[in-house]
């Protein structure tokens, strides 16, 4: 059994490395060959924000959600969730790093990315505030994690090899009362995460595009972050235990049942939010632009993505799986529901970014379908592989399994 697992680990590692290389090639291609000319977009050609922006939004939504869910256990006294805090924090760190990397490589002038923080600052731009808060968030998150892991790192100093070395380096600065301090920093971190994330919602919401425009979009972003966070925490915890060959029981099972509740509740709210958003925007008294903007999802080029991927796979089936006791009470059932939710959320991001841009077209030109450029798909595969790879390395090097 042990040997087989070891073999599987090596094969999975190789696959990840290959995918990361493919992703690197995709990014390189994106920046050496023009990707733009795809569909007429008024005078401009192509949809300006495509798959990679959606992937960025997906990752930063995930990090916010993971941070919120981990904070429920760590900061806000949901003791049942404590067993999954470490995984949640590590996944939050990985997803924000990959998210920032995605957007950093998506912009056309990669080397000028730092302009947005130093020297050329436009305080009126929501994007500027989003960048500032996400950078602050990364710093806070790292500090929080350091305090949270400190006691276990002290234990790990005795280990041999790389694990011991990492622990010895990380424990060079001395600290006491680390768990209390982690809680304080954790509060600041989750606050920053939510502020940063609602800024991302506002980044879309301030534009006068019917599918985005409105003050509720930032709130909706936070809501969908909780959905993503709960689902990803379940996926992370379940897969980790599956690969370790540990049966999920005891307090980890209780934690997953708690997440079932969080996920189920936030899915219900999301369903109401989605339904009313569509009804309001498609109602005959709304502006023509607004009705055309929603039609894209109801019966237009994004209808499959919306009805099948978002609503059926992302919202309804997971909710049923969670609600029915035969599946919901099993860790595997919650895992399946979470996986479907995340697939739905991924398409939700693509629809939000690309579908929201569709009504910018002038009446008379055809509405474009979702645009999946091969280079961008390569890059996307690479980013996801890198996320899993980083999580794996983090899991191996940090004291994840020591009882906290």
């Amino acid at each position: 059994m042990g040997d087989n697992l070891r073999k599987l680990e090596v094969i999975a590692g190789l696959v990840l490395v290959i995918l990361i290389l493919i992703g690197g090639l995709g990014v390189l291609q994106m920046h050496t060959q023009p990707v733009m000319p795809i569909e007429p977009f008024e005078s401009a050609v192509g949809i300006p924000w495509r798959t990679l922006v959606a992937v960025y939004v997906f990752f930063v939504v995930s990090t916010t959600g993971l941070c919120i869910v981990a904070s429920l256990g760590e900061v806000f006294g949901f003791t049942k969730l404590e067993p999954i805090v470490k995984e949640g924090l590590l996944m939050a760190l990985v997803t924000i790093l990959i998210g920032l990397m995605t957007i950093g490589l998506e912009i056309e002038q990669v080397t000028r990315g730092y302009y947005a923080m130093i020297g050329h600052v436009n305080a009126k731009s929501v994007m500027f505030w989003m960048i500032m808060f996400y950078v602050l968030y990364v710093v806070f998150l790292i500090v929080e994690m350091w305090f949270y892991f400190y006691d276990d790192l002290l234990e790990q100093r005795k280990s041999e090899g790389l694990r011991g070395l990492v622990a010895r380096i990380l424990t060079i600065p001395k600290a006491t009362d680390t768990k209390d301090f982690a809680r304080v920093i954790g509060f600041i971190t989750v606050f920053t995460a939510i502020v940063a994330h609602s800024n991302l919602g506002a980044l879309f919401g301030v534009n006068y595009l019917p599918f985005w425009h409105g003050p509720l979009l930032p709130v909706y972003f936070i809501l969908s972050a909780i959905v993503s966070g709960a689902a990803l925490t379940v996926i992370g915890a379940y897969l980790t235990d599956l690969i370790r060959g540990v049966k999920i029981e005891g307090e980890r099972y209780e934690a997953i049942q708690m997440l079932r509740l969080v996920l189920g509740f936030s899915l219900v709210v999301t369903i109401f939010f989605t339904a009313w958003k569509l009804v309001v925007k498609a109602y005959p008294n709304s502006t023509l632009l607004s009705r055309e903007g929603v039609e894209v999802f109801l019966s237009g080029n994004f209808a499959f993505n919306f009805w099948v991927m978002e609503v059926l796979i992302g919202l309804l089936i997971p909710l049923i799986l969670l609600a029915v006791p035969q599946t919901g009470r099993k860790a595997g059932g919650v895992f399946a529901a979470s996986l479907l939710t995340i697939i739905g959320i991924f398409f939700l991001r693509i629809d939000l970014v690309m579908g929201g841009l569709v009504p910018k077209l002038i009446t008379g030109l055809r509405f474009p379908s979702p645009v999946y450029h091969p280079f961008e798909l390569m890059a996307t595969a690479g980013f996801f592989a890198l996320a899993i790879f980083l999580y794996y390395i983090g899991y191996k090097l940090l004291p994840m399994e020591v009882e906290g």
Partner: protein
Amino acid sequence: MKKGKMKRRNFLKLIAGLIPITAFTTLTKAFKAGESGKSYVMVVDVNKCIGCGKCVIACKTENGVPMELPLSRTWIEGYSVEEKIPISESEVKKKVLSTSENPFLDKDWIEDTKNLKTFYVPKLCNHCINAPCVNVCPVYARFYTRDGIVLVDKETCIGCKYCIVACPYGATFLHPEQGVTDKCTFCYHRIERGLQPACVLACPTGARVFGDINDENSEVSKLVRGNKVSVLKPEEGTFPRVLYIGLDSYVVE
């Protein structure tokens, strides 16, 4: 524990320090617009446009936009309308001329639009007084000149494409060779020296007129006084500097 406290305090200081600095730079930059006493506008007479596309070619040649790609700083939209009541049921067909190839000379277009109401609307950056692209640019690569024109600083643009998303007129695009966003500048390099924008010079029917609206004797002032003018998407509150004469209600954007 001490170390952590120091860190946290520093971060808070960083945020607190940034707010007044950024607010100050924003305000000082915003007030520069209109300093020169000039206020440039372009008046486009839709009735005079024949859809020949000379302005598109002149602009692309003058400003180095790839001729064969369907992106351009200025473009012409050709409309054909089969009117019905209610007005929203009218069949509106639209084609865009943004390369040297003229789709309005295409046989299909001529066949399809026979006996219908047809007209052409030249479009370009509206140089809004409240420009969405200037508002959203995270690095201040978009700014107002002293005479109110909106320009792109190509040395600063990071290519995030937020301006393309924010522009209600679709007037800005990613320059495929430069990797930064590009748009009409009213040929700022020419008007600085007292010359006319390239598209204005190229127009055979004089459908485009450019000038200083603050100068009472300028041609644009006379046109604005003597005609009913309108702007695109007035509901956006962007206050465009491109004014249209004879704009049809079917031109929704």
